[in-house]
Structure formats: C-alpha cells, structure tokens
C-alpha cells in the first residue's frame, strides 16, 4: 500500500488505480472520496510543475467547472520527491454516454431534448469560465468531460490544459484527431500554442453531438466523389448538415434530425463554427454566444402531441423525432419504464403503438474492477519453534504463516473469476436471445402488413395515411381506416406487443438475477485479488 503526501505534508493512503493514461495512473484514496491522485510514470519536469502550480491558482474559483489540481503529490513528507498531483474526484458519466442514445437510455433514462440543451448550455458556460481565466483546454474530447445527473459539467484530465504566466505559455501538447480543428489537422501538437478559437471547434462539435443524438457533424454520405475519412472531412470543412447550396461534398445520413429543426440563429452559428473561414482568429462562435443562443432555445421548445417525450423547437415544421420514427422505425426518445405509466398514450392510434415497438437497449453490466480492502492477515504462528524459525529461516517462516491463506485465496479467486465470466456470458446470451425474439416478432408483424396491404383497398387506406404526417395527430378526425382493417391491425400489433413485452420482461428478470450473482462474484473476486496482493507483499517482505 503506497503512501503519498500533499503540499502540506499530510499523508494519504492510495487505495486503487481506476484509470490509466499515457502519462500516469489515477488512483483513489482511502481517506477521501472527493479526491484522487494522478501518479506520473515519468517524474514531471520544471515546466510541468510550474504549469500545475499556475493551474492550482484557479482551483477554488473553478470548482464545479473543471477538476483542477488541488495539490502536488510527493513520495515523502519532506516534499523532496514530486511524483504526481491531487485532483478532485469527479463522478457522473462521460459526455459520450449522454449523447449516445443507448447509453443515455441506460444512464440518463429520463433525459429528454431539454436536458441535452441544458447540458450543452452548461458546457458552454464551463468553456466561457475557463477562457475568461486565460485557460485553453486544448485536448477537447468525448472522454474528458463528465456529466452529472443534474446536467452539470465537469472537465477532467486538466493537467493537459494550456496556461500562461508573464514569462511564457505552457502548451497543451496533446490532441485527438477527431476533435482537432481543420487548421491543426495532421500537425504535431507538441509546443503548439492553442487559442480559444481552437477550443470553440471542439465545443461546437460537442454541442452538435448533444443536439443531434450522437451524430458527428463531419460524418455524412458523399454527394459526389469518394468517401472521406473523418480527418479529411474536417480538413475540407465538410460539415455534412450544411445546406446543399454551400457545395459541401457530404450530405446528412438517414435517420438524423435536419439542421432546420433548430432556430436559424443556431443553424447559423453551427455553420460559422464548421465552415471555411472559421480558422480565422475569433471567427468561431464563442462560448458566450453559444450560451445566449441555447438559453433562447430553451425558452422556445414545445412538446410533441404524439409522443410526450419528444421535445423540440416550436418553430420546426414538425417533430423531428417523429420524422425519424417514420423514416427508420426507431424512437430516439422513447417512453422509458420509469416515465411511461405517468403519461398514458392514446391507446387507439395504432401507428403510435407501432412506433413504440422499439428494442430496449439492454446492456451487459460490467463488473467493477475496483480493488477492495484486503482482509486482515492470519494470526502469526505462536510458540518457541516459530520464534526460532523466524530468526533462522524467515522465508520459510513467512510461508508457514501465510502460505495456506494464499493457496486458499487463489482458489477463491479462480472460482469467483470463472463465475464472473460465466455471468457475463449468461447476460450476453440473454440479451442476444431478446434481440432475436424482437426481430422475429417484428418480422411477423411486417409480413402480416405485407399480406394486409396486398388487398388494394387497404393498401390505399394505408398509403393515404402515411403520406399525411399530420394525420398522425388527429387520428380521430382525419382520414380513417375502415373498422375491420383497424381491428386486424390492432390484433396483429397487440400480439406483437405482447410477445415483445414478454421477451423484454423475461430478459430484464434474467439479467437482474444474473447481474446480482455476477456482481456478488465480482466482489468476491476483487476481495480475493486484494487478499492475494496483500499476502504476496507480506511473503516477499523479508
């Protein structure tokens, strides 16, 4: 167990590493659950130390915005050997787990479009505050921004920020190609001085991902020419959602909300962030501008009459999320188990029911890899023989003391580990079976429709219905299906719904059981692992 010391000489016990980076490993502390420590693989040089100290000046002011250094970490109480740095420990999820639809439904099940705009607004606020403090983020990416359940934002991995004092600039040196602005693409970023305008490229991309259900602004379908790699697309300012007349070589993929589903001022600032000319100093929309526009968007939202979970800009021609359902059959903001009962869908509109037949995003629950506190060591053997042996043959004595426990723990570890593996396999099988059942039910429904729609009269009815998106809203008043057709459709859908619901319930139940046992086994495994490490450490110490 390693001890580290902070700038005041206070000691902390390291409990376990939970993240590995290129420069160092980040560990939790035993005494504090609001702090973590990053231990560098290479001792930091004078430049790095100066940068950490400069960043530390802003720590208090920027609490709740960025996890800036709390203190330097030393290997000794005399603070001679610098080995790392203390950061606030930030919980929440990485931002990609919010903009990714499947993980959003898992970790933020109640988050609607409004929540995503709030997050974007908080993100812009964080960028604004950092830029005001003279800090440039540099390495903006999907993994070093955390979102908390209340949509607040915290930046982590802050030792790569860029900051300056009177004498010099301490650059970020790192970057991620997918998040690098066109003007820096392909460059070696070591020593490159970054600007707020560079950061604002990443900010605009993140806001885009949040507002467009995880779609990357530079991923599209070629209008002409060969497919572009993402880096090429960025370098060519090929913002796939730009209006066609701008001559961008990409067009938006299917199943995305269109750019025009957002207010003109937001369309305009997305264009300013991504189009040619945005590399000019100060050309991209600043964090402050984003904040103003997003605040205004928050005030001009409306709720879809068809799906109460669909929130969108009131000026849009129609609900973009419903349009995606019509296009692909997928509901990006479905009613979740936690909120569906409260809303009460209009049961009779069969198209609504059809649209709600979406696959539930079951996921395998990863077993936490964290280490636990080792159990106390077995009692030392007593007696004269033991004292003698300890003096004369310490290794053998240690083995007599701990060997049996080690053997036992290893067996426990092996059993628990295979139980964890079995559990994960079971979960995977359960999910795969659910997927199969869902597809099967869906296919049955489709063939039923195919059969139905071969009757010309019914076909006409259906086509008339589908060609008129507004008919969805007023099913009762608008064009109506004949009663017999309705009945047949209702029956088919009900059968399909029941089948899917049963499958989903079974899956949920089986997953729950399996997850419980797997987590239990995981805990056992972690415990045994900690014990083994501890025993080995004591066996070797001699």
């Amino acid at each position, binding site marked *: 167990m390693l001890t580290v010391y902070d700038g005041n000489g206070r000691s902390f016990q390291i409990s376990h590493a939970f993240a590995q980076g290129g420069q160092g490993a980040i560990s939790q502390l035993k005494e504090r659950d609001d702090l973590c420590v990053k231990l560098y693989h290479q001792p930091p040089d004078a430049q790095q130390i100066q940068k950490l100290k400069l960043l530390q000046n802003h720590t208090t002011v920027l609490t709740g915005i960025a996890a800036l250094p709390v203190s330097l970490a030393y290997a000794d109480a005399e603070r001679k050997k610098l080995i790392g740095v203390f950061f606030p420990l930030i919980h929440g999820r990485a931002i990609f787990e919010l903009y990714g*639809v499947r993980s959003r439904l898992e970790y933020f099940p109640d988050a609607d479009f409004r929540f995503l705009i709030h997050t974007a607004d908080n993100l812009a606020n964080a960028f604004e505050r950092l830029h005001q403090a003279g800090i440039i983020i540099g390495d903006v990416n999907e993994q070093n921004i955390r979102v908390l359940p209340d949509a607040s934002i915290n930046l982590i991995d802050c030792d790569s920020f860029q900051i300056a004092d009177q004498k010099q600039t301490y650059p970020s040196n790192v970057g991620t*190609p997918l998040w690098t602005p066109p003007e820096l693409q392909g460059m070696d970023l070591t020593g490159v001085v970054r600007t707020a305008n560079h950061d604002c490229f990443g900010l605009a991309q993140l806001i885009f991902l949040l507002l467009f259900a995880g779609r990357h602004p530079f991923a599209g379908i070629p209008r002409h020419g060969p497919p572009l790699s993402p880096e090429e697309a960025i370098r060519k300012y090929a913002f796939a959602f730009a209006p066609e007349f701008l001559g961008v070589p990409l067009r938006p993929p299917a199943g995305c909300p269109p750019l025009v589903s957002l207010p003109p001022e937001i369309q305009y600032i997305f264009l300013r962030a991504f189009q040619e000319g945005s590399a000019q100093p100060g050309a991209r929309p600043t964090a402050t501008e984003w904040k103003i526009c997003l605040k205004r968007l928050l005030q001009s939202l409306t709720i879809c009459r068809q799906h109460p979970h669909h929130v969108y800009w009131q000026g849009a021609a129609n609900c973009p999320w419903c349009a995606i359902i019509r296009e692909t059959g997928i509901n990006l903001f479905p009613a979740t188990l936690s909120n569906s009962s409260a809303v009460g869908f209009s049961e009779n509109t069969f198209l609504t029911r059809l649209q709600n037949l979406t696959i539930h995003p079951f996921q395998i629950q990863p077993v936490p890899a964290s280490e636990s506190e080792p159990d106390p060591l077995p009692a030392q053997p007593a007696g004269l023989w033991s004292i003698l042996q300890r003096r004369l043959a310490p290794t053998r004595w240690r083995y007599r003391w701990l060997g049996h426990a080690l053997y036992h723990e290893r067996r426990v570890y092996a059993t628990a580990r295979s139980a964890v593996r079995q559990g994960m396999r079971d979960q995977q099988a359960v999910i795969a079976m659910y997927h199969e059942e869902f597809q099967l039910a869906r296919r049955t429904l489709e063939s039923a429709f195919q059969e139905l729609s071969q009757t010309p009269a019914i076909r006409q009815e259906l086509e008339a219905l589908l060609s008129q998106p507004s008919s969805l809203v007023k099913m009762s008043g608008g064009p109506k299906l004949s009663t017999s057709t309705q009945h047949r459709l209702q029956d088919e859908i009900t059968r399909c719904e029941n089948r899917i619901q049963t499958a989903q319930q079974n899956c949920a139940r089986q997953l729950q059981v399996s997850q419980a046992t797997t987590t239990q086994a995981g805990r056992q495994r972690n415990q045994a692992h900690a014990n083994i490490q501890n025993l080995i450490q004591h066996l070797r110490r001699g």
Partner: protein
Amino acid sequence: MTDKLAFVGMEFVDNPEPRCPCILLLDTSGSMRGEPIAALNQGVESLAEELNSDPLARERIELAVITFGGDVQVVQDFVTPASFLPPRFEADGNTPMGRAVITGCQLLEERKRMYQAAGVNYFRPWIFLITDGDPTDYNTNTWCQAVELTRAAEAAKSFVFYGVAVNDADQAKLNELCAPHRPAEKLRGLSFSELFSWLSCSLRSVSLANPGVLRPTLPPMNSWALLEA
C-alpha cells in the same frame, strides 16, 4: 408500408459512433479436435466479455465470425459485443482457408458499404485468421484469389490482416496471405485466452484512437506469440 417499417441500418440510428469492424476467420477443421477447439471456444467467449467491459469500445467494435472446417460458414455477421453470442465451435472436415478469406473479404466489403450508406465513420478493419492446418485449397484458383485480395487490401490499406499459426500449421503458406511486414505469428502452445485478451486490448486501443489513424500503439504480443529466436 413495409418499406417504412423495415429495419434499415437500425443499429446506426441509435448508435452512430464510428465502427471498428473485426472478422475472426477460425479454423474448425478436424485437426482442431479436442483441446484446441475447447481452448478456442473459451478464447472467443472471453474476447466478447472483455470487449463488453469498456463503455466506448462496446459501442464501436463490431465482431463477425467465419469458420472453415469442411465448409465455410458465416457463423456470426457483424454485431456489437453486447449482442454477440459466442458460438460453440465443433471441429470437423478439411481446411478451405482460401475460400474463407474470400468470404471474409466479401462480408467486410458489404459491411463497409453499409457504413457508407448509413453515413457512419469506421476504423481500419481487422481480419484475424487462426489456423492449425494446411489449406486444402492451396494451389487452386481460390487460393490465388485469396492471396491477391489480401495483398491488394494491404497495399490499399483497406484492412489489416493478422495470421496466427497454431501447432503445426504451415506458416509458409499462411505467410502468403500476410503482408511482408506483418508475417504470421506462431501461437505458444494453446494460449488462446492470452491471444484473445491481446486482441481485445488492441481493438480497444484502435477504437479509442480515431478513425483513420493507421498505427495506434498496440500491446506487445509476447503473452501469446512464440517469438522466433
């Protein structure tokens, strides 16, 4: 009507993350019978499990499995790890390796077209071939075609091909499929679990780098590869 309900690229609508496709071409011929096939089964299971434990990788990596033992079978088309059900392999038949490689390339091309049609970025795909045998279609047109395909793909950097030789596999023939700078590796004993653990780590680091990055740093192979003296 049916068109509107069809599942066109459904997996890309609610998960447009860039994809990192990997095809496993697995030798399930008669010579793999017994311990090797059991170790292979276990290895593939642990691969899926390890991939599932990484939140971003499990949205990005897609696995497909093709076996060649007697005939060539697409056992699993591309899926993300959460819906990947590790198949149970049975060892039987001869070793139509060339045909398997061609099938793999076709499957991959098809998948790439789907990515392009769905407007989803992808990383450089991986084809990972594991064999303990002698290709039974060696010196046929099929074999020549397979060699041509892998060589052309390596030159165009359209995928990365890894060959792994188990036991007494004919490494020289396997090397014909591999790029000269990335010759086939020899598996140490039956350390399949180490092999798949390496594959999982590598795929994760590839998928977390960025699409288009040609050579992210991969973990060392010494846990499973028999290094030539």
